[in-house]
C-alpha cells in the first residue's frame, strides 16, 4: 500500500526555511556538500570556505523568500552557484600557460593516436547512482589540470552554454574548445584505465 502523501512529506526532515533556522543544523547538514561543490569549481580551499560562508549568510537573509518549491539543499546550492559565478566573474583572467600543452599526450608528433582506444562496453554500472563509478569519475575530474576541469564541470556537469562560459572565464571560444577537448581526452584516458578496463 502506498503511504499517504502527508506521511511521505513528513518523512523528510526539513528545517523549514522561512521559519526559524538553526545555524548549527544547517551547517552540519549541508556544509560539506556545499564545500565540495565550491571546491570542485574553484580548487582553492580558502576561497571555497569563503563562498560557503557567503552562501549561508545570503540564505539566512533570504530565508523568508524560500517558497519551498525545491528542497532546501537545492535552494542552498542555487545560492552558492550565484556566489560562485560572481567569484569567477570578479577573478581576473588567469593565464593557463602551464595547462596549455597538457592533455595531448595520447598523440604522437604527427598527431596520430599513440595509445589503443578501447571500445567501452555498455556498462549498466556506469551510472551516477553507482558509488564506485561516481568516485572513479570524481577522481578522474580531480586529476585534470585546473583550467580543463573547470571548463568541463561548467559545460558538462552544470550544463552551461559555451558562450556563457567564455564570458564568465573571459576566454575565446577557441580557447574554451581547446580546454574541453583536452579535458575530454584526459577523462577518457583516466576512465578507461580506472573503470572500463577493470
Amino acid at each position, binding site marked *: 500500500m502506498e503511504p499517504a502523501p502527508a506521511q511521505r512529506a513528513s518523512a523528510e526532515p526539513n528545517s523549514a526555511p522561512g521559519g526559524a533556522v538553526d545555524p548549527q543544523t544547517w551547517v552540519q547538514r549541508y556544509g560539506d556538500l556545499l564545500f565540495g561543490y565550491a571546491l570542485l569549481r574553484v580548487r582553492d580551499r580558502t576561497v571555497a570556505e569563503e563562498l560557503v560562508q557567503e552562501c549561508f549568510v545570503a540564505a539566512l537573509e533570504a530565508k523568508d523568500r524560500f517558497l519551498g518549491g525545491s528542497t532546501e539543499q537545492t535552494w542552498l546550492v542555487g545560492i552558492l552557484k550565484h556566489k560562485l559565478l560572481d567569484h569567477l566573474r570578479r577573478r581576473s583572467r588567469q593565464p593557463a600557460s602551464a595547462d596549455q600543452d597538457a592533455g595531448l599526450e595520447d598523440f604522437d608528433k604527427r*598527431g596520430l593516436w599513440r595509445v589503443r582506444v578501447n571500445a567501452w562496453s555498455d556498462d549498466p554500472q556506469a551510472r*551516477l547512482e553507482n558509488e564506485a563509478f561516481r568516485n572513479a569519475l570524481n577522481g578522474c575530474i580531480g586529476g585534470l589540470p585546473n583550467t580543463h576541469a573547470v571548463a568541463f564541470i561548467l559545460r558538462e556537469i552544470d550544463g552551461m552554454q559555451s558562450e556563457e562560459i567564455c564570458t564568465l572565464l573571459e576566454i575565446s571560444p577557441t580557447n574554451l574548445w581547446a580546454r574541453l577537448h583536452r579535458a575530454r581526452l584526459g577523462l577518457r584516458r583516466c576512465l578507461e584505465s580506472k573503470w572500463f578496463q577493470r
Partner: protein
Amino acid sequence: MIDFIRQLNAPCRDMTEYVSRSLDSELTRSQRAAVQVHMLYCRACRRYRAQVRMLRALLAERPDAPEILAEAANLHLDPATKDRIIALLRERSNPPKPDNGQ
C-alpha cells in the same frame, strides 16, 4: 574546397578536436564532412566519439548531477570553519541589542 582537402588530411588529434567541438558548437560544413570521412576508416576516433558522447549522456541523465558529484567528492569543511560560520549565522540571526552603556 581547399579547406575540405586540408581538413581531410588532418590527423586524429585534430579530428578528436572537431568531434569534441561538435558537442559545444556548430562545425563548418567542411569540418563535418572531413570528420565523416575520417570516421569511415579510423576505429580509434570512432571509439573516442562514442566515449565522449557516452560521458555526456550519463551526466545529462541526472539533472542533479552537480549535487550528486559534490556530495560524492566527500570533502569536509574544517570543524573550526564550521564553528566560525555557525557563530556568524547566530550573530546575524540574533543581532545583539545595542548597548549604549547606560
